[in-house]
Each structure stands twice: as C-alpha cells, then as structure tokens.
C-alpha cells in the first residue's frame, strides 16, 4: 500500500480515541494536593462508591467514573460536569470506599476548582444570588401553617443583614458579583 492509498482510504478503526497526551496529567496531582485528595491514587475502580450512591443512576458519569477521569487527567470534563453539583453530599460513597478515598470531599474540591474558573451551573449561581440578596435560602413567609400553630407571621428578631455583609465579602460574593 502506498502512502496516498492510506490517506484516501477509510480509517482503519472507526473509533475516535481520547488522546492521552492532550489530557492534563497534572490534574490528579492538583486534586491530590488539596486538603482531602491524599488518598486519590488508592482508588482501584471497584465502583463501591457508585453502588452506594442514592442518585448516580441518573448521572452520565458515575462517581467511580469521575474519580477515574480525575486520575486520567480529564480536567475539563470533570470540572464542567453537572454531576459534581448534583451530588447530595450524603457521604455514603466516602463511608463505604474500601480504599479510604474521600470521594465526597474530592467532589467538594472539584466544585471549588470549578467555581474559581466560573464553571458554575446557572441554578447554583441563582441560589447564591438569593443568599446574597435575602440572606437566607428559604424565606419564612406568613402562611396558614404558621397561623395554625399560633406563630407570628415573621420570625421574631430574625435579622439577615449581618449575614449578607459577611457573605458579600466571601467568594460567593465575588462569584455572584462577577456574574452580574
């Protein structure tokens, strides 16, 4: 076969592999250096974490796959995934991992890294905004339930102003501020 033949003909394999040299091989070290990442490399892909997770059945990437993607260096995919934000932080995966990988904590680390790069889903930014504006996520409203229980319409003495000031000075403030 000449070289021209080779180029013109159909590709030998009909797969488009992920090129390992294009991935970020330093990503695993980045995660490892964060407060909870020290056991990351111990993962042996048993998938106990996924078996333990109450909601991973609806995820595209399951917990064990996310850990694997971190180890492989798929930084972009992990940090822009919805899954790290959908995690309930119930810690069941972390409790059961036979190699003591701090799965939930590692997802927290991922969220922090993603946030730094402004990779935050709209819904989460929305929540942060509410927190900034209202000082609370679940506003107490005067409704029949309170009335039935003989409670005053508003929570007595509740002041969220101080909290609003604090949160403005945090990273949450920056994230929301930066978005506006």
């Amino acid at each position, binding site marked *: 076969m000449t070289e021209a033949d080779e180029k013109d003909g159909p590709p*030998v*394999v009909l*797969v*488009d*592999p*992920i*090129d*390992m*040299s294009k991935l970020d*091989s330093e990503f*695993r070290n980045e995660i490892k250096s964060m407060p909870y990442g020290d056991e990351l*490399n*111990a*993962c*042996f*892909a048993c*998938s106990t974490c996924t078996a333990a997770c109450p909601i991973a059945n609806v995820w595209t990437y399951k917990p*064990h*796959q996310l850990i*694997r*993607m971190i*180890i*492989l260096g798929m930084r972009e995919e992990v940090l822009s995934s919805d899954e790290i934000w959908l995690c309930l932080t119930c810690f069941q995966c972390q409790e059961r991992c036979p190699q003591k990988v701090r799965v939930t904590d590692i997802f927290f680390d991922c969220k922090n890294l993603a946030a730094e790069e402004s990779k935050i889903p709209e819904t989460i930014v929305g929540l942060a905004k509410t927190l900034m504006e209202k000082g609370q996520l679940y506003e107490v409203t005067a409704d029949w339930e309170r009335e039935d229980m003989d409670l005053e319409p508003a929570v007595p003495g509740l002041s969220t102003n101080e909290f609003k000031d604090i949160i403005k000075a945090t990273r949450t403030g920056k994230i929301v501020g930066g978005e506006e």
Partner: protein
Amino acid sequence: MSDPVLIIGAGVAGLTAAVELADSGVNTIVVEKLPTVGGNALDLYKAFPTDDCFYCFEGNRWRPGIRKCFYRSALIDQPNMDLKINSYVEQITGNSGKFEATIHVGPEYIDAKKCIMCGLCIEYSSAFSLVSPQCQPQAVTYDPDKADEGDKKAVEECPTKAINLDAQPKKETVSVSDVVIATGYHEMKPVNVDEYSYGKHPNIVTQLELAQILDPIGATDGKLLRPSDGKPAKRVMMVQCVGSRDENYYPYCSKICCVYALKHANILTEERDASQVSVVYMDIRTYDSHERYYREARENGVEFVRGRVARVEPKDENELDIIVYDSLLDKYLKFTVDLFVLSSALEPPEGMDNIIDSLGLNVASGFIAPADLVSENEVVAGDHIYACGTALGPAEVPESVTQARAVASKILQNRK
C-alpha cells in the same frame, strides 16, 4: 547403600530438592539441559516477596561461598550432588523405587573446575560465550555450531588449559531410587497473538525480557532503554493476560504475572525514572499479601486501565501508538509509548509431554498433576516419582521451594 535420587531440572525447585537431600546424606544426580543452573530465576533482578535475591536471606548466611549465594556454595562444597549440565534424560525404565535412567551427558568442552572466566577465549572466537555472570558452574560455554578459526588459538592461549574441543557426549546408565521432576515452565513467546504485534517491533517485549532489561548485570546495565535506539524509555505500557485465561491459548490463569508485572511497574517508577507507566488489565490478581504491590503501584501513580487493547500502531521505529478500550469509562484511549510489555502466559516447557507420557503421570493443562487428585500430596506424581516447582504449574519461588522441601521430606521418610 541406597541408590541416588534423580532430579530433572536445576531451577530453584530442582536445586532446593537436591541441596536438602544432599545435606541429609542422600546422593543426588541433577540433570540440567542448559549449561548453567538457575532456570528462569537466573535473570530476575529483584524477586518478590523479599525484593532481594531469594537465597541471600539471613538464614543461609552460614554457608561459606562467593557472594553468599546458597547454590554457588552448595554446588562447590556439597559432595553428595552430582550435577550434569548440557544433559538430558533419554529414558527411564523400572518402577517402584528401582529405576534405571539413561542420561545423555553433553560433551564437556570446558572444564569448569579450571576455567577462571578470564574471557580470553571469547575474544578469539564467537563460539565461546558467558551465559550470565551469575552462571553456575562458573565457566564459559562452547557452542560447536559456531566453531571457527579462533578456536585453536583459544585452546592454546587459555591460561588454565580448561578447553578440550575433542570432548564427546557420553551415555550413562544409573540406578536411582526416586525421580524428581523439576523441569519448570516456559514463558510463551506471544507471536501468534496477532493483536499485540509481538516480534514486529523491537519495542514490544515480554515481562521476562523486561526483567532482563532491568537486571543490573544485563546488557543495558539495568538501564531502562528502548531496544530500538538505546534511548531512555520513559513511557511504558503493560498488558495482562496475554495468552492466559484465553481458550484460544491457555485456559488457566498464569497466577504470578500480575504480581511480577506490578513488581516491574514499581521498579520502573521508583528506580528507573519512567514518567508514565500504564497497566491494561481484566482483573488484577495479586493474591495473598502481594496486594501490597498493587497498592504501592497505585501510590506510585501507575495508571491502571481496565479493558483491552484495541490496536497497536507503530508510529515510527521508536514509538508506538496504542488504542485501549477502557471498559470502566466506556471510552477509547490513545497512548503513545516507548515500550510495550506483554504479560505472556507461562506454559509447560518443551518435552514435558514426553516425560508425562513415558512415566504415565496425570496431566493438568500440560503440567504435571498429582497422582491422587483428592489428597493434599500435590508433590507426589507417582510411585517414587515426585514433582515440584513450576513443573506443577505456574508458581512463585517461595512456593516452588516449599514444594521441593516437601519432596525431600517425603523421600527421607520413605527411606527410614
């Protein structure tokens, strides 16, 4: 006086049986087809589970001898051992403690007692060579197929007059009381497993070949170099279960390839400065406490990919592109590597079926099976016939040694 014991094969198993028996006052005849003892363990560099040469451990230090090696000193000091190198057993007749064995003893071109391994003969003719600096007996070997003009000069110049080119093979018939089969294993050359392209690119090797590259007394002085151009190999990929657990080749698990692959992966990352080591596997079987090699490998950053190799595509003479299907991610990954190492099946050695047939032994996947399959006497292959080490199937050195000691103990009990 009782007849001697015949031991076929001088790897760790055969030698252990021989030394144990000899030390207990039993005469032994050890028949080895190669010019040196040691078998497959000769070039293994560090051995699990001690990460050291198995026989240099403390318990054996009382034996005098060069570099404290157990076998060297035994072969030199122990008068009850009759080692016949370059030899094989032609035929065994008789039974039940009274056997006649015909041994073909290869010509003794070099007198090992005289050779001082000065290397002068090697300079004169390529027919002379040194199998390994670790070889035992400590002597060069002569290959008559490569005979040339320089031979005679070598004979004349040899400072100790150790060379005799007129040596002839001999046939010896001996009466022996027991037969111990310790013929070991062979690492399959995976030439037929097309998908891995073994033999088609210099940088595709087997684990045993990698062990030889890592051996500090080997050709590269232990440096991790690409066979193609001698440049440092930085990126290495290993693939497990090549020809094992595969009905097209060998249906069994070769049992120790996971452990030594990870032993190698750890040596590569800890001592040889490899920047990327990946292991493609179906299952990692690091039995018993060998799990620590697996844990250590992960800590060292070795990349484990569960799945199989889709394609091997040589990029040029020095680099290979390897596409792997990652079954955990359901994705295809492309790696570029300098060295591709195949964990090839451990198979029965050549001639094993002859031995099994002629002695009427049980067979399991080509290796020797115990005479009584339900008993726990796995080393008893027949009446006064024993097997130990990897002649019984893939095994590590400690297991081979334990079996060899069990054989010695059985024979000693029978003699009382």
